[in-house]
């Protein structure tokens, strides 16, 4: 928190959603979106550590050129299970199901999501899907790569593919129902005065994300169902020996799995769009452009899938079209980066922990995004296809982007979720450790890939060892960067200072209610009469006391 800011003495409300009822049943049968968010928080953290465990083994194994730890077969399983756990059970649900679930009703001034029971059902579906996948991991593992390419996955693999594809199929419905719930909620549950263009950008980002969940996930579901049927009943949908088409599988798979990247990163962009105006004390620059670019990313994101298949022998004309469309996604992405930067310009920036994460996001997303342009270029991609360059690129987006956004968002809304502040000094340190560790882990992989080290290989030529050791060293720092927040956030739930309703202060409706909020979110239904991120017309925020000079507004705000 910024020094010198005059705030009323913070205290916890007597009754809130955490202490309204007690007992295990009151949690497992809750329909309160805030409690369901916390159930998700616990379960995605569990899968994060499972995925992280496999990542650790991968990095230890790659310390030596011949492979230090496991057999080649086991190595295949390690990177597959890392990918499956992280993508389907951590990254995709992380921000939407935890922060989105908690915040969307609060941000739009609703008492809950449109379908609270469906929300709880989504969590149980997630658990059932997760159980199937854990069963696969513990009974033979999974070695197909997270992409499940046929006919490897449907015929040749000897690992436990069937329970894994069924688990992801089941989990897909959790994602679909969450997306459905969000879209309907945003349409019909907004408080009086909360017009579409007064919605926080976090909500716009989740609306775009939900569109992808609704339109993409069913296609993955049916595709993996067909793979499961093919494997169990020896059918031939994607098996060339029986007349099926394996390339068709790749089209269907990437039709979901490319937009899925935007399921991961769009919500993180939403988080950054909230943190930056709040901690730069300035209205966001170009509100409508940021809102629109979220929708544009979701729409164009559906039209680029075949750039994953440039080397499968697709026609030159198709490749040209998909290359062009892939370049096109860069435009709305860059719009966001420029607008965040313009918001920071002449802002009264406070270096709170969420701001460090937000700035980290911008830098890492920029690198991830620009290297994405390398990969959209039909000439370069042939050189770097299936190398560590690709691995580094998507980790910059998924970890540098999505996970930074997620952890930053957890810090930003932690006072709202728990009513307690996290410890500031150590959390700033942890954010910096995370940033340094991340870059040390993944930047060397760009070089490795450019020099030609293929991904998914269990061994490598000796001249690549230095870069691999650097990457493994970075991974240990990165691990510390994750364990620290985990430890002090849990600590702060008991020992942290009471946060008060609006510690930053920020402009969103979620900051108008108690921290932690009451079960029904607001004591009286709020009526919105102000524009989003407008600090000037909000004397209620305590900023007009003159303690914190307001930066002049710029641009179209």
């Amino acid at each position, binding site marked *: 928190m910024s020094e010198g800011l005059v705030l009323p003495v913070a205290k916890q409300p007597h009754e809130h959603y955490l202490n309204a009822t007690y007992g295990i049943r009151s949690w497992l049968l809750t329909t309160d979106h805030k409690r369901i968010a916390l159930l998700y928080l616990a379960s995605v953290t569990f899968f994060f550590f499972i995925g992280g465990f496999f990542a650790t083994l991968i990095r230890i194994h790659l310390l030596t050129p011949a492979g230090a730890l496991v057999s080649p077969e086991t190595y295949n399983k390690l990177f597959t299970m890392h990918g499956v756990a992280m993508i389907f059970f951590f990254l995709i649900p992380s921000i939407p199901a935890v922060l989105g679930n908690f915040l969307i009703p609060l941000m739009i001034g609703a008492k809950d999501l449109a379908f609270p029971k469906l929300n709880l059902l989504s969590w149980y579906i997630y658990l059932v899907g997760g159980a199937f996948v854990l069963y696969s991991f513990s009974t033979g593992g999974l070695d197909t790569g997270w992409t499940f390419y046929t006919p490897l996955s449907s015929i040749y693999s000897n690992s436990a593919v069937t329970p894994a594809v069924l688990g992801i199929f089941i989990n897909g419905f959790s994602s679909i129902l969450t997306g459905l719930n969000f879209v309907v909620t945003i349409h019909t549950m907004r408080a009086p005065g909360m017009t579409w263009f007064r919605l926080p950008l976090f909500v716009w980002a989740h609306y775009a994300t939900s569109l992808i969940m609704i339109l993409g996930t069913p296609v993955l579901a*049916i595709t993996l169902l067909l793979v499961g049927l093919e494997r169990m009943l020896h059918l031939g949908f994607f098996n060339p020996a029986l007349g099926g088409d394996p390339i068709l599988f790749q089209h269907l798979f990437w039709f979901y799995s490319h937009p899925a990247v935007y399921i991961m990163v769009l919500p993180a962009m939403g988080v950054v769009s909230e943190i930056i105006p709040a901690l730069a004390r300035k209205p966001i620059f170009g509100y409508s452009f940021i809102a629109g670019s979220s929708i544009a990313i979701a729409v164009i994101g559906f039209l680029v899938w075949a750039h994953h298949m440039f080397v499968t022998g697709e026609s030159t004309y198709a490749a040209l079209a998909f290359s062009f469309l892939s370049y096109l996604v860069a435009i709305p992405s860059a719009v966001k980066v420029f607008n965040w930067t313009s918001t920071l310009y002449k802002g009264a920036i406070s270096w709170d922990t969420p701001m460090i994460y937000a700035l980290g996001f911008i830098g890492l997303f920029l690198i991830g995004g620009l290297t994405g342009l390398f990969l959209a270029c039909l000439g370069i991609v042939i050189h770097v296809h299936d190398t560590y360059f690709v691995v580094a690129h998507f980790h910059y987006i998924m970890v540098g982007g999505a996970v930074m956004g997620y952890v930053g968002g957890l810090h930003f809304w932690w006072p709202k979720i728990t009513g307690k502040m996290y410890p500031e000094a150590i959390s700033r340190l942890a954010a910096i450790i995370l940033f340094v560790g991340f870059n040390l882990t993944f930047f060397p992989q760009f070089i490795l890939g450019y020099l030609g080290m293929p991904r998914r290989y269990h061994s490598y030529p000796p001249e690549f060892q230095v870069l691999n050791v650097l990457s493994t060293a970075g991974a240990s720092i990165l691990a510390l960067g994750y364990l620290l927040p985990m430890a002090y956030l849990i600590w702060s739930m008991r020992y942290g200072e009471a946060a008060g309703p609006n510690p930053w202060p920020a402009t969103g409706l979620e900051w108008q209610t108690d921290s932690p909020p009451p079960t029904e979110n607001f004591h009286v239904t709020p009526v919105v009469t102000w524009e989003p991120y407008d600090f000037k017309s909000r004397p209620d925020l305590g900023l007009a006391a003159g303690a914190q000079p307001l930066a002049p507004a710029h641009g179209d705000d």
Partner: protein
Amino acid sequence: MHRTGELYGQFETLEQQKETATLGMWIFLVTEVLFFGGLFLTYTINRHYYFTAFGVGGNMLDLTMGTANTFVLIASSFTMAMSVWTAQTSRKNLLPIFLMLTLILGGVFLGIKYVEYKQKYDHHLIPGPSFDITYRINHPARGDNPKELAAERQEIGEALRTEDPENPQGALVALNAHTQLYFSLYFAMTGLHALHMVVGAGLLIWLFTESLKGRFSTSYYTPVETVGLYWHFVDIVWIYLFALLYLINRHLG
């Protein structure tokens, strides 16, 4: 969230609640379109690859039963629409009758589908090691219509000549494999559709028991309407399935 009468606690008004439920069902149906869409795409592409074999497969389906089922479902859509109307107009005595009629028609559809599946099983048309498109013409059963068998023999013979006149043995192996692909898709598509029918039947049973308690009326009929949307959607999927699977390249008589 607590419920006051039919109004759930997260909503301000019954109107908002109705709008929300209806929008939710429409969006769910959009996801269903994409879900079936993956299958329709797989079917269409393979139909394009193996036009002859898929024609042979399509001609092996029982057009009479398929047509009968189409009429049964269209009739059930009518009774479903009547259910919504009786609920909207508070005709509380008629509503359970129309719901029950819809349920019975759904049951008839599934019954006919079962007979069809059983017939395919008897003809060795279930994908797997024993799949054999020539099984029926080589092992005629007692009740088989000789004209039908002759037509099927001619159909397969023509397909083999189209595929590879030089090598009828190799052509038969390929034709068998590709027709098996047709039947894999046939069972996946109609099976998934039947599963949706079963879910719909479960929803109708629930509506039926609630309607007996007189729960639905002009002021509250949202569940009847949303289940109705679902039911009509499942019917429409069948109309497409019927046209794609039974009617393309059909040789009558």
